[in-house]
Structure formats: C-alpha cells, structure tokens
C-alpha cells in the first residue's frame, strides 16, 4: 500500500478497498518500524491521527470525500498545528505547543488529510543537510551515512522511505527542492504568494514559501490544489482564483521550449549529476520538446545576495524568541540583558546564531547601504535575467543540486561549501518563481539525482505537466531504497 500514489490510494478509499483508519495505521506502523534509523519524524500523536482518520472515514461514508480525504500527511515542524508540539527544529521551541493552525495545515485538514506527525528539519530552516536540528540529524534513506539535504530533510526522507504518502515542506533557498533531489522524491516550491505564510514560522519572509513533497508530480498537483489559496491574514498572499493544478498534466509536450541556462551546466556539477540531466534532456527531446540555450548572467551573485537578505530578515524575525513570553528561557541569569543573552545563546544552535549575527551586521548603521540595499538591487537583476530567459522558453531545466547526497559531517565545518549546495535553487526564491525537483537517475554510488524545472510566475500547472510527462516516460520516481522496500 505504501508504494501507491495519492491518486491510487484515493481510488482504493473510494472503492472501500481500505479505510482511512487502515491507511493511517499502516503508515504509523511504518514510522514505528523505520523512523529510529532515519530520525525523520520527531513528533507523533497517534490518538489524534486515528481520530482524524475516523473523521475522514465518516466523510467518505457520507459521500463527502475529496481527492485527499483520508490520505495521511506529515507536516514539516515549521508549520503550527493546533495542539501539536511545533519546534522548528530548535531547542528554543522544543516545548512549544501551537495554539492555532497554519493556513496550509488548516487547508489540508479541511481537505480531509490525516496528520501523521511532524518532521525533523534544520533549525529554523537554516541548513542544507538537516544537521542543524536540535533533534539530531536526519539520515538519507538511500545511505544512512549521508545527509538527506535540508532544510525539509525530515519530510524528504520520510516520503523517500514511504513513511507517508506526502509531506509538507518550505523553501527559502531550496529547502524543498534540494532535499527532494537528495532523497529521490518530488518537491514543488510555488510562486511566492501562492500559499499563505500564516502559521509557518518565519525564516526569511520575502523568500519563504510552502510547498508539497510526494512521490509523483501528479501527487504534487493534487496537494498544491488544496494547499494554495488566498489568505487575508498574510498580506503577501495573492488574491487569485483557485486553480486545479492537475488540469494540464496530460498535455503533450510537443513544441514546449525548454531553456537550458549555460550557468547550470558548468564544471561545478558532479559528472554523474550532469549525465543524468543530459539523459533527461534527451527524454524531453523524444517527447517532442525543443531545447533552447538561455543565460542567467547574474546567477553567480545569487548566493552572496541570499546570504545578505535572508540573514537580515532572519535576524529580525527571530528577535521574538527572547525568553519572555513562550519557548526556552535560560535557567539562571542576572539582569534582563543577561537573560536575553543566555536564553538566545542556549536556545539557538551555531548556524542560527551565525545567521543572526550576519543579518544584524548587514543591517547596522553604516553597512546597510553597502549590503542590504545593494543586495536588493542585485535581486532585481536576477529576476530580470529570468524574465529575459522566459521570453525565449516555457520552462528552464537544470540540476537541482550540483551534487548528490554528501556524507554527514563532511561540510559542517565549511559553511561556504554547504551554502554552495543551493547554488541552483536560490535564484528561484530571489525571483519569487515556481520551481520543482523530480528524480532523474542515480549516481555511480546509488544516490538519487534531482532534476529541476523552473517556470514563470504562476506556471505551476505547466511545470507539473512537464514533470508528469517525464514520469510517464521514466521510472526513477518509483524506486524505493532497499531497507524500506518491504
């Protein structure tokens, strides 16, 4: 049952071949059996999950089911879920129980999805390897000594190991797409503003966006149709007509122009990754797509720009964790300043502290113009590069990450090397565009390779179509890491 897509599971539920309760028990059993080796799920509340499954079954029985009713889902622990512990992977919130639902959680609840639990993540979504979590690293289901990517590493590993049919993630600089690539699953970051950020714990507000992670592009389309939607509580949420993101899945690819930015095909890419991407391009040509060479000349600036803007926003967003109202407070302290300092030194891990310091620095008097203002200017140039590219193509294709999964601990002492693993994903967030990653092969060591597709604003349905057509012509997305195949 764990091998079935959401669409297939929904059909079984509709035909009463299984119940939502059975489905939920099945995945809870898998989590109990396999999570210890992965550390992907950090919070379970079986009674709550089973109650939700029973409610979903009642809906199915009453003939009021939608395409997601009764389907279990894991939420990245960055989403507030009422009465669920919501930690954001941090000691700071290790005991925080959210009193309200994030908009995304509420929408999936309303669709009848059953929350199975909360997934591990890099602390406050700051990381590309899931090693910054207060709850310990997540391991890659394809190789336990390797990282799953980050920051949505728990969600990616859980879907890869089939501990759940789907999971939510968030993507600020690649945090959905990069772990999806490293774990061999599918992940979509929508256009900025398509999914509400309300209740999603902020890292860098102008970049953060929620999205689905699942086994297939079709499942992503089903999930996004439920997650997306205007929310008056998020001023950056876009007021648009609801969309059925599955509507273009079956469209043939004849005539689609696929842009290949020369900056994505350089020597920095691991040869096995480059080879898989080339093979995928060949598949697309066979499917009738055309390829065109495009250029994103300012792409190389995206990492420095990101590491000015994201920490700047984070330094302010994380100021609320001060030990005064909720969350961690240092056990012993002298005066107020001492309380702040100890609380934040003890409550935040090293990477979060580093980014708060970078952000504080770049916003400081005398540095603001040289860093923040200049970075904003370059951000507009990067967006303009994409706009120019989309004059000539419908989607942009390239690797999601320059390498496959790397070994745990191999980059923790070298933040710049770590930051480079997001080199192909960050520009998409800076421009606010939609992007997704799908499995496109394996390297010689048997680790998955991710293929990234980037679209113009609001072209999610088209992107999913391009991804789905590839999956009809390939089976990379159906592979399951051996220990989890039974």
């Amino acid at each position, binding site marked *: 049952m764990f091998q079935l897509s959401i669409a297939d599971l929904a059909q079984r539920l509709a035909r009463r071949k299984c119940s939502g309760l059975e489905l939920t028990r099945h995945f809870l059993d898998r989590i109990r059996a396999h999570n210890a080796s992965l550390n992907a799920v950090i919070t379970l509340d079986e009674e709550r999950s089973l109650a939700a499954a029973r409610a979903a079954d009642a809906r199915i029985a009453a003939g009021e089911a939608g395409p997601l009713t009764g389907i279990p889902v894991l939420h990245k622990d960055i989403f507030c879920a009422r009465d669920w512990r919501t930690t954001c992977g941090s000691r700071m919130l290790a005991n*925080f129980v959210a009193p309200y639902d994030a908009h995304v959680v509420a929408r999936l609840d309303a669709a009848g999805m059953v929350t199975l639990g909360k997934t591990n993540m890099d602390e406050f979504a700051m990381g590309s390897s899931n090693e910054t979590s207060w709850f310990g690293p997540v391991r890659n289901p394809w190789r336990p000594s390797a990282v799953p990517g980050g920051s949505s590493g728990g969600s990616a590993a859980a879907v890869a190991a089939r501990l759940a049919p789907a999971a939510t993630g968030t993507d600020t600089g690649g945090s959905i797409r990069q772990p999806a690539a490293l774990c061999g699953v599918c992940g979509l970051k929508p256009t900025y503003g398509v999914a509400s950020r309300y209740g999603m714990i902020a890292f860098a507000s102008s970049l953060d966006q929620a999205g689905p992670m699942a086994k297939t592009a079709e499942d992503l389309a089903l999930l996004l149709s439920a997650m997306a939607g205007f929310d008056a509580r*998020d001023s*950056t949420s876009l007021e648009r007509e609801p969309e059925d993101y599955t509507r273009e899945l079956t469209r043939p690819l004849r005539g689609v122009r696929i842009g290949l930015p020369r900056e994505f095909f350089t020597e920095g890419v691991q040869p096995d990754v480059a080879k898989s991407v080339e093979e995928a391009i060949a598949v697309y040509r066979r499917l009738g797509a055309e390829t065109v060479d495009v250029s994103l000349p300012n792409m190389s600036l995206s990492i420095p720009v990101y590491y000015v803007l994201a920490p700047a926003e984070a330094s302010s967003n994380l100021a609320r964790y001060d030990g005064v109202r909720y969350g961690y407070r240092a056990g012993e302290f002298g005066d107020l300043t001492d309380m702040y300092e100890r609380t934040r030194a003890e409550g935040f891990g090293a990477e979060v502290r580093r980014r708060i310091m970078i952000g504080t620095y770049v916003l400081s*008097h005398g540095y*603001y113009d040289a860093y923040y203002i200049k970075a904003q200017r370059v951000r507009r140039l990067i967006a303009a590069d994409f706009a120019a590219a989309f004059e000539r193509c419908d989607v942009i294709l390239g690797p999601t990450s320059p390498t496959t999964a790397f070994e745990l601990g191999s980059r923790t002492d070298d933040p710049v090397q770590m930051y480079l693993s997001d080199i192909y994903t960050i520009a998409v967030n800076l421009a606010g565009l939609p992007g997704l990653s799908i499995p496109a092969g394996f390297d010689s060591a048997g680790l998955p390779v991710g293929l990234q597709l980037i679209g113009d604003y609001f072209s999610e349905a088209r992107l999913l179509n391009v991804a789905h057509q590839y999956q009809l012509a390939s089976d990379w997305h159906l592979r399951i890491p051996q220990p989890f195949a039974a």
Partner: protein
Amino acid sequence: MNWETVIGLEVHVQLSTRSKIFSGASTAFGADPNTHACDIDVALPGVLPVLNGAAVAKAVRFGLAVGATINRRSIFARKNYFYPDLPKGYQISQYEIPVVQSGSVEIVLPGGGMKTVRLTRAHLEEDAGKSLHEDFHGMTGIDLNRAGTPLLEIVSEPDMRGAAEAVAYGKALHALVRWLDICDGNMQEGSFRMDANVSVRPAGSDKLGTRCEIKNLNSFRFLERAIDYEVRRQIEVLSDGGVIRQETRLYDPDRDETRTMRSKEDAHDYRYFPDPDLLPLEITEPYLAEVSAAMPELPAQKRSRFGSAYALSAYDASLLTGSRELADYFEAAAAGLSAQGAKLVANWITGALSAKLNEEDLDITGSKVSAAELRQLIERIADGTISGKLARDVFDAMWTGEGSADAIIERRGLRQISDSGELEKLVDEVVAANAAQIADYRAGKAKAFNALVGQVMKASKGKANPQQVNEILRRKLS
C-alpha cells in the same frame, strides 16, 4: 548674553480605531492585563501583521487637515530593539517614506498673535505593551493590551521659540486631532504623548544649538515646566563655558527637573529595514477623494466663517473654535439671532458659561444649560425683557436646574420695568429722599448722578430699565 530657545515637538497620537493597527484585538483601555492581546500581539511563531484600514484613513485625514503631502506610496519598516514589552523584538513603523509629509498648523500665540508651525512628517506605527514593576516581587509583569495600538507620530520642525509657544502648539494639535475625530485626546490614558526637542542659541544666531530630547510628557503643564527647566539648565551650562551633550532626558514632575536617560553614545542602532510582511501602503486618488469628502469643516475655516458671518473678533472666533463641540454649541445658540445677538452669545459662552464649566471641571458637552436654553436667555436680553445684570442671576438659576429663562423670569418677577409712569414715580421718590446728593450734582459732581441712578435701580430691585432711568433723572434735575 541673550539666548534664544528653539523647540520642536514629536507627538504620539493614539488613533481611535476599534481594533489594533495590525491585528483584530480590541484597543479598549483599562481591561485586565493581556486580555486584549491576540496571537499576533503576543508575537507567536508564524503570525503575520495585516494593516488596519481605519488607521490609514485617520492618518490621511490628519494629513489633509494640515495641508500636507499624502505620499501615494509609503513603506512600513521594522525598528529593531529588545525590550520585554516589545513582543516581536521590533516595532513596525514608517521610516524613510511616511504617509504624511510636511504641512503646517496655525497656532494662537499667548500674546494674541498667530504663528505657523511647520510639520516635518506624520507616520503610522504601533505602540508597545507596558512593563509593570510593582506587585511582582523582584520581577516585572508584562501587559500586552496596549501592544499594537495604532499611533500617528507627528513631528514638527523646530519652529517654536519658548515653552509657551510649545504649549500653544501642543494644545492646537490636541484640539485638531479631537476635532478630526482621529484621537480621543485622553492624556491620562496616554492617548496624546509629547516629546520635546529643546536647544538654545545666542540670540540672532541662525545655527541650531545641540538639542536634548525630553521624552514622554503627558500634560501641557509638564511640557511647559520641563522645557522651562531644560532651557535654564542649558543656558547655565553654556554660560559656564560648558557644552551640551546630545541626549535623551526624562522629566521628573516631583522634583521639577529633567535627568539624563541615555546619551547619544548609548543610542540604539535600530537597524531599520522595510518590513517584508507588509506591502507598501498605496494611496489612490479615489481613496483620497473619499477621505477628503468626509472631512469636517476645519477650525481655520470655521474661524474665518465665524468672523464674517457673526462679526466676531479674531480672538472670540479662535476661542469658540477651540473644539468642535464648543463651535457646534455656539452655532446652535446663535441660530436665528442677529449679529448683535451672536456677539452676545459669544460673550456669554466665553464669560459666564466658561466660568461655570471651569468651576465644575466640565467641558462644553457637560454644560447644564443647553444651547437652545442659552439662546432663549439671550433673546430676553436682546428684546429688553431683562437687564444684562439680572440675566446673570437667571443664568445661575438655569444652571442649577430651576427651569428655562422665561420660567425663571416669570416666577421671580424679573421682567424689566420699562413703564415710564412707574419709573417716574420711582425717580421722584429717590429725588425727594436724597437732597444732599442732588445738591452735589448741581454743584458739578458728576459722580453723584450715578449714585442716584443706583438708588433708583436698587429701589426697583434691579428691574428698572437703566436707559430710561437715566433719561428721566436727567430731565428731572435739569
């Protein structure tokens, strides 16, 4: 050396919206601690601000009233600092581009003249919560009810030249925001708080001296005293050859002095940057037209209309436009009266009525004599039914609830005696009884005449028409 004082004011005006500027929680004053603080006010993880349109409308209304530029696009910024009653660790404010820019306020100077105080800007921001230091035994309590209350910070140019001018400006602004119905003006509850930037310079110099900012003055009396103290202090320091350090100071009303709060070196680096959670505030032309159409007649417009329509002096007109309620009272009382009658109404409001209100610490809305009741009294003076002198007694009786002017005049028999026969008789009696004074008068002592008129008035219990008494007496003695 002669010194000139230079003052600019920053005033925090609490906008009278029902809910907060970025959340739906109530702004009502006086609730139990933290009962008007929602998820957003407490800054729970994941919450986001949404701008309250009513606060914007009030800011724009103010901008239009002071002839300011309304920026079509203004930006909300984060002002970052740590304090226990600042839940997010930053205050959302407007920094580089405020919604209201420039403009001016006309003030009436203590000596009677007028002066224009230029405004630099007015921007929207949220208030912080409150730290409670009592009752917590070595700890501090935090009340977030006030957190997120909408404020309009109105910043003036350094155009005032003394405490009295600063007070006049403060009062004019206070009257204006109440007039516009954008602030309840309640100073005890902190709805109108002033910071004064004070410096001195040698008279005749056009260079500004180093300023000190006195924070959080919540009464005009404290504003005046704090400035007076600060000016004395600065002159003293400079006269002794010292220098003024730029700093923030607090006024202590118990000791009547200002004290250092923090020096410039300790000033926070607020790390302002545009708030990525909020879109730029866009003001469209149709929106502006809508706010403009809903504007009440402004004090200045009303002042000049009162001057021309009722022939009031500039001074009376400015007194009567001190608040919208007072102006409304005047217009209701003067309705249908001649220009002369209106002038009488003005005199009565600024005289007898104001005295009563002051005595009982009421404002015009608490007046025990309604505008229509006052008008009846004025009509009886104008048509000669009672003398102005007796009218005062009638007014006092009206105030204590004895009824309308007509009823009191009737009941007390205060109708003026204008019957010449009756008056002649009274005059004859007085003339007969005061031979000595008549002799004085005839000997050229003009004063004696007034004494005789007084005798007649006394005999009539004040009811005699003084004009007629004068004429009759003069005739009898000639």
